């Protein structure tokens, strides 16, 4: 039978049978005997002094086995929650797992109760009496910049850091400009909302003095390391299991109070402790994303050429640092020039504390903000100079022959063909036809808009030197004696489908049927140390490590076969999935046969170590930079202010594609989350720090009716950064889509002279803009 390669094939996901039949195991599906259930008592105030915590009534409630406050953990030596960063000048606030002395955001855990039944635990949590003295709160990051009240009084400021990055001669650029355009962009706070909220099950084995934490996480090994530090246990006495994880989007790339508290209580009481959060708790106490105020100023020539850019990012960090809180907004600076030649830049990122939940990595994590501000700016330039937005982009693109291209921000983009991909998208969308349709619609008084976003993003995170912690990842490949192939990957997929795509890679390289391949992940006792799944790194980093391990396996298998055939390994190769002698079709050996010989050990070349397995780690020499063009067509109803997406077309370039179906799914979901920011979603706190969007009834996650079908296409520009030639794709859709939608809505309102509106573009906001509009700009 002919050998069919699977790289590029639309094979069905191997994960799915268990998921579609309800046989998958998420954290709450793990049932242990004698489990205690945790319920957390959380601050109802944005900012308050904690005068006292009375646990006595809760402790005496039937079924309750314990109730604890922050002091109990501190006395036992439990340390603060970690933050990973390499910033030199940064104020890092103390962050105990349970608040001590002061509560600084609504939902901050203050105490925890464990009972033999989750209903009893929640009843008893109501019986914990906390005496608070409410303190003045600050929620608006611009007010926080100005001074009091301070979130952390000891700092005497709310500014956690100021990070300037500048390059070129900005002053001269602005002096020689024909036009200067200034705009403030508010990038509103979002909630990640994985459909599975957080959950953790902690089990203490007193015989081995070992703690097993089963938790809904994207980073089992990093979490293990941090728990070892925080709980003071040897790291090899902790096992972290990421079972089936019901969505992450960055929100589960963290170390949470609840994970620490459950671990500590399980050790203290010797009973399994489980915590499954409610959706309301998830809105309060899971990290949020975005929340920046971005002041942009660009110097432009009359032909649309951008000469220089000034940018001030004010990033609302929240009250405390979670794992990557201060780092995320710095990515906005780095990617602010987008896919354009802007050599003169003066930028600053100011991170400020407020009485809100911490912001951190949410799908795109700092890059959607960058793409939004630059893609909106390009449209403002076009509007001001009465140019087509397409032409302004064309004027400023980094040329295809300029790669690798080092930007003013110091990043080196690996590969790109921005103009070719944009032209491909324009043809696919029939851009000229769309503009004619728009002109006709405008004559009828209809508000049709066309929005374009030409994005580049940074992912495949990343070179260790440029990461807050390790950026490499790992893979082990084992050819078992029966010929089954086991892959242990250091990444921790939770919907991205690497059990399938990695198996495709193995099948191609080793000629092993898919059914013989198992991809294992998410268990620190099974898998060698790995960094995890985030930053669109799974395939670009973890997949690259897999390719390296497979190369080792193949070389050894070739040496084993050559020895049997008394041939030189140089004359033996992998051909059509089998080991074969070059130019001789008669002699072949399968990987399974070589694996069996390696197991038997008695017919190996002299001095060769038995066994056929390999572990390799890939240290990325650079990030990868996917790019593309998204085109959105909307119609705004002037009677209601409602935006309807008529068409959404995306042409993405993520390098070589292993499984187009899975890549398409990633783009779909990414676009949906970007559209959601543009039109619907917004975390709102009132001025006292009270969370007003605390349920799915208040926070507008789009439903099927709110979204269009998507038209997808791809160009393929490989990268040389990794041996697979792949770039990441998990976040690209989210990064690209938000400005495409907003540009479309503003383009629809162009006849009214409305140049900018801040997100989300809810009907009321758009309706008001229409009714207050002065006239054409």
């Amino acid at each position, binding site marked *: 039978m002919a050998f069919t390669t699977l790289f590029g094939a639309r*094979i*069905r*996901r191997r*994960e*799915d*049978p*268990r*998921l*579609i*039949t*309800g*046989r*998958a195991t*998420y954290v*709450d*599906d793990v*049932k242990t005997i004698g489990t205690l259930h945790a319920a957390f008592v959380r601050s109802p105030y944005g900012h308050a002094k904690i005068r006292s915590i009375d646990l006595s009534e809760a402790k005496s409630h*039937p079924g309750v086995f314990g109730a604890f406050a922050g002091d109990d953990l501190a006395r036992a030596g439990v340390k603060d929650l970690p933050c990973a960063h390499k910033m030199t000048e940064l104020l890092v606030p103390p962050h105990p797992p349970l608040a001590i002395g002061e509560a600084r955001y609504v939902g901050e855990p203050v105490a925890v109760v464990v009972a033999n039944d989750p*209903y009893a635990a929640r*009843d008893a949590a*109501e*019986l914990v009496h906390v005496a608070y003295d409410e303190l003045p709160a600050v929620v608006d990051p611009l007010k926080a910049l100005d001074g009091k009240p301070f979130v952390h009084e000891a700092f005497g400021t709310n500014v956690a850091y100021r990070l300037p990055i500048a390059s070129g001669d900005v002053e001269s650029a602005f002096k020689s400009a024909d036009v200067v355009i200034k705009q403030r962009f508010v990038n509103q706070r979002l909630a990640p*909302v*994985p*459909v*599975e909220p957080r959950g953790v099950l902690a089990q203490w084995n007193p015989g081995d003095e070992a703690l097993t934490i089963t938790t809904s996480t994207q980073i089992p090994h990093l979490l293990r390391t941090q728990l070892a530090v925080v709980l003071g246990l040897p790291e090899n006495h902790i096992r972290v299991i990421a079972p*089936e*994880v*019901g*969505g*992450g*989007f960055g929100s589960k790339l963290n170390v949470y109070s609840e994970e620490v508290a459950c671990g500590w209580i399980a050790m203290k009481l010797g009973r399994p402790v489980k915590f499954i959060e*409610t*959706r*309301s708790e998830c809105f309060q106490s899971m990290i949020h994303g975005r929340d920046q105020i971005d002041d942009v100023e660009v110097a432009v020539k009359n032909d649309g050429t951008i000469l220089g850019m000034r940018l001030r990012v004010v990033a609302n960090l929240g009250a405390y640092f979670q794992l990557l809180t201060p780092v995320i907004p710095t990515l906005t600076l780095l990617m602010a020039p987008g896919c354009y030649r802007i050599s003169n830049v003066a930028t600053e990122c100011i991170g400020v504390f407020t009485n809100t939940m911490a912001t951190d990595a949410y799908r795109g994590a700092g890059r959607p903000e960058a793409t939004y501000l630059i893609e909106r700016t390009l449209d403002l330039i076009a509007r001001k100079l009465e140019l087509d937005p397409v032409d302004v982009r064309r004027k400023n693109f980094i040329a295809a022959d300029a790669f690798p291209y080092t930007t003013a921000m110091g990043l080196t983009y690996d590969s790109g063909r921005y103009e070719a991909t944009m032209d491909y998208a324009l043809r696919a969308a029939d851009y000229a036809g769309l503009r004619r349709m728009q002109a006709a619609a405008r004559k009828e008084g209809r508000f049709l808009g066309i929005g374009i976003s030409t994005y580049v993003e940074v992912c495949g995170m990343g070179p260790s030197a440029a990461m807050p912690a390790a950026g490499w990842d790992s893979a082990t490949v084992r050819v078992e004696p029966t010929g089954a192939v086991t892959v242990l990957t250091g990444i921790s997929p*939770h*919907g*991205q*489908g690497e059990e*399938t795509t990695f198996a495709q890679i193995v099948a191609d390289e080793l000629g092993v049927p*898919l*059914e013989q391949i198992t991809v294992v992940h998410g268990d620190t006792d099974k898998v060698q140390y790995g960094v995890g799944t985030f930053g669109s790194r799974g395939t670009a980093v973890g997949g690259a490590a897999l390719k390296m391990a497979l190369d080792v396996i193949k070389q050894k298998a070739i040496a084993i076969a050559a020895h049997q055939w008394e041939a030189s390994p140089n004359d033996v190769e992998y051909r059509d999935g089998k080991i074969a002698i070059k130019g001789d079709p008669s002699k072949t050996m399968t990987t399974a046969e070589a694996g069996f010989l390696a197991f038997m050990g008695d017919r190996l070349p002299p001095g060769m170590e038995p066994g056929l397995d390999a572990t390799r780690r890939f240290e990325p020499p650079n990030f990868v930079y996917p790019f593309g063009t998204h085109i959105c067509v909307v119609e705004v109803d002037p009677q209601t202010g409602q935006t309807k997406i008529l068409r959404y077309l995306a042409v993405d370039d993520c390098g070589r594609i292993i499984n187009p*179906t*899975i890549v*398409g*799914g990633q783009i*779909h*979901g990414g*676009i*949906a*989350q970007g559209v959601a920011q543009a039109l619907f979603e917004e975390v709102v706190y009132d001025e006292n720090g009270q969370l007003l969007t605390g*349920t*799915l009834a208040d926070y507008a*996650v789009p*439903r*099927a*009716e709110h*979204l269009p*079908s*998507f038209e997808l296409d791809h160009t393929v520009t490989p990268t040389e950064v990794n041996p697979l030639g792949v770039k990441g794709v998990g976040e690209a859709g989210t990064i690209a889509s938000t400005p495409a939608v907003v540009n479309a809505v503003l383009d629809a309102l162009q006849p009214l002279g409305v140049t900018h509106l801040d997100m989300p573009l809810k009907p009321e906001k758009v309706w008001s803009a229409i009714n207050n509009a002065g006239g054409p700009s």
Partner: protein
Amino acid sequence: MQTNLSAKPALIPIDVEVNGKRESLSVEPRLLLVHLLRERLGLTGTHVGCDTSSCGACTVLLDGRSVKSCTVLAVQADGCSVTTIEGIGEASALHPMQEAFWAEHGLQCGYCTTGMIMSAIDVIRRNPDPSDNEIRAGIGGNICRCTGYHNIVRAVKAAAKALRERVPEGARKGNGVPAAPEPVGASGGE
């Protein structure tokens, strides 16, 4: 209403048919159907995603109609039949809706999927040949954060077509749940 938190609430006996099997249990009056299924009967394929009946992850069929089992008390299911994801098919004999979600890549993390499939089955029961817009309206009670719904709509459409073509009306059995077709291969590949 239970106001004395320390008092042991009286248990209520109920009879429920779950996935074709009769279950007789005693439950607290406040016990939710979803907790009955997950904690008492071990049917963990039904998930909980919120506390405001907003997300639909917990959708099951109650006497053949989709309900959010976080908003039904176990005592309300007394005398009723309940069908969960575990009751409609397994890997070796998938329900056409499960098959279609797999074929069309209608899921990623899988958490909303089981509830989404149960909702979609009810959508098709009510309207065997739905348009894209009717499908989108029909699954409006279920949130998916991964797929952008694009492939879910395709899956429901494909399942509706498969059911119209493969299963004659008379062959449908209990609870309005269409009978599973002949087993399909579970090894992947198209």
